[in-house]
């Protein structure tokens, strides 16, 4: 009977631990080594009178949450929604938005998770104002962005203007899912949006 009790308790603990994964949002201290800061020629913010086209973005690095990914190209779906990357291991840049480092908001999205576990933007919600985001462009230059705010919105009340609306400076929006997960539909109910502006 004692043995049965021990076994039952053991199964209970194992089951609980296996079904409760790491929770997004709490930044672990010292558990995950941050990535090194990328190096290279850092692009200055765009001058208003210069209309020369900047190079396209090719990769994204966020050292403080250990994110490093190529950037695939994204468009809109048949219903006009933002496309998402074909795998959960990469992020993508919406080609209908500004190029990072040019005037206007550059839009990048990525998956928070797959069916099995964390995706490329699992830790996005850990970002805080002041954190740096680095984007490498096709010409080798580096665009550095500074996070100014992180917001969670219900998809039913998505603030299109705030996220996609025009800006007079070079800005960045990083988008992933968050909030509660609806098992019935297989979708998260919210989006997490990180707002960042080009660092001077």
């Amino acid at each position, binding site marked *: *009977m*004692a043995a049965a009790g021990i076994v039952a308790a053991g199964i209970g603990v194992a089951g609980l631990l296996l079904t*409760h994964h790491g929770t997004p949002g709490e930044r672990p201290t010292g558990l995950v080594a941050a990535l090194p800061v990328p190096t290279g020629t850092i692009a200055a913010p765009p001058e208003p009178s210069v209309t020369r086209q900047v190079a396209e973005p090719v990769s994204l690095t966020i050292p403080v949450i250990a994110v490093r990914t190529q950037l695939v190209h994204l468009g809109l779906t048949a219903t006009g*929604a933002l496309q998402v990357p074909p795998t959960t291991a990469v992020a993508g840049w919406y080609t209908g938005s500004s190029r990072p480092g040019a005037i206007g*908001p550059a839009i990048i999205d990525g998956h928070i998770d797959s069916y099995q576990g964390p995706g490329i933007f699992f830790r996005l919600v850990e970002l805080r104002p002041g954190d740096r985001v680095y984007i490498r462009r096709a010409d080798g230059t580096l665009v550095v962005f500074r996070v100014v705010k992180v917001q969670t919105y219900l998809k039913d009340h998505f603030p299109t*203007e705030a996220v996609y609306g*025009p800006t007079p*400076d070079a800005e960045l929006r990083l988008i992933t*899912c968050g909030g509660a997960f609806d098992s019935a539909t297989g979708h998260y109910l919210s989006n997490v949006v990180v707002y960042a502006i080009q660092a001077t």
Partner: protein
Amino acid sequence: MKTMRETRRKLRMVAASAMCLGIALTGTALAGSVLAGNASASPTSNDGWIRLAHLSPNTPAVDVYLYAFGNSDAFQVLKHVSYGTVSAYEPLAAGDYSVAMRGAGAAASSPAVLSADVDIQAGHAYTVAGMGPESGLRLAVLDDQLTTPPGQALVRVIQASLKQNMVNVSFAGQTLANGLKFGSVSSYATVSPGAGDVTVSYSGDAPVTDSVSLAADTVHTLVVLDGTNGLEVVDLVDAAGNSAVPTGGVATGFGGTAPHGPPSAVPWLVMMAAGGVLAASAGLWLRRLPRLGT
């Protein structure tokens, strides 16, 4: 006899450790289910944007000071801003600010040559420009458009030439400003996107042309300036938006890391409770066993 005593002692030890384990594990499970929950973002204040410009041809270079309203210490100073300079936009938290201009190199404590208050609203952009002749210098606070009709461009003209009192400005044959006086700003014109010539005509010499490219969903300000060799036109991109704005939210998740709600935790907790009860019962049962020897 000795074997049975040994067995019972071992059983008691195992039961006791099972009890301890059961208690420890139950505690861990309770802590685990409490930790599960959703992260919340921390909203900060919304931003507007401001840029500063020196558009008075016969006024020497100035230092431009930016104050949060009511503060006597400027949080930003642009030094030696000369005629024709337009800074890039800077995001600022919505609220009241003051802009002051002093002669370049003048002490921060000296009286300002010009000052103006700016109420920055969230999502709005402003140009604060020193305009007019030096004798009638003033600080104008312009409300800047950011949003265009979908697929179109918006263009306005600032006439900052002292030598030519009135100018006519057109782009690819479309009139942008007619008889625009020195020191004034035209209203925005909606323009079909494309590359073409901006033509500035005035009484006297041949018109001045400048080739510009107006992309869809961009807002431009054309500034007419006194250059070293006559009139000059500078094309400023004020804002850029998305060519096609996505609708709704973004489907970027499959649920593999979603915390399961309380209903999912219950079966595991029940199992642990049952395990704990069994272990406790085993302990109690052991105590009821008759003690044989020591």
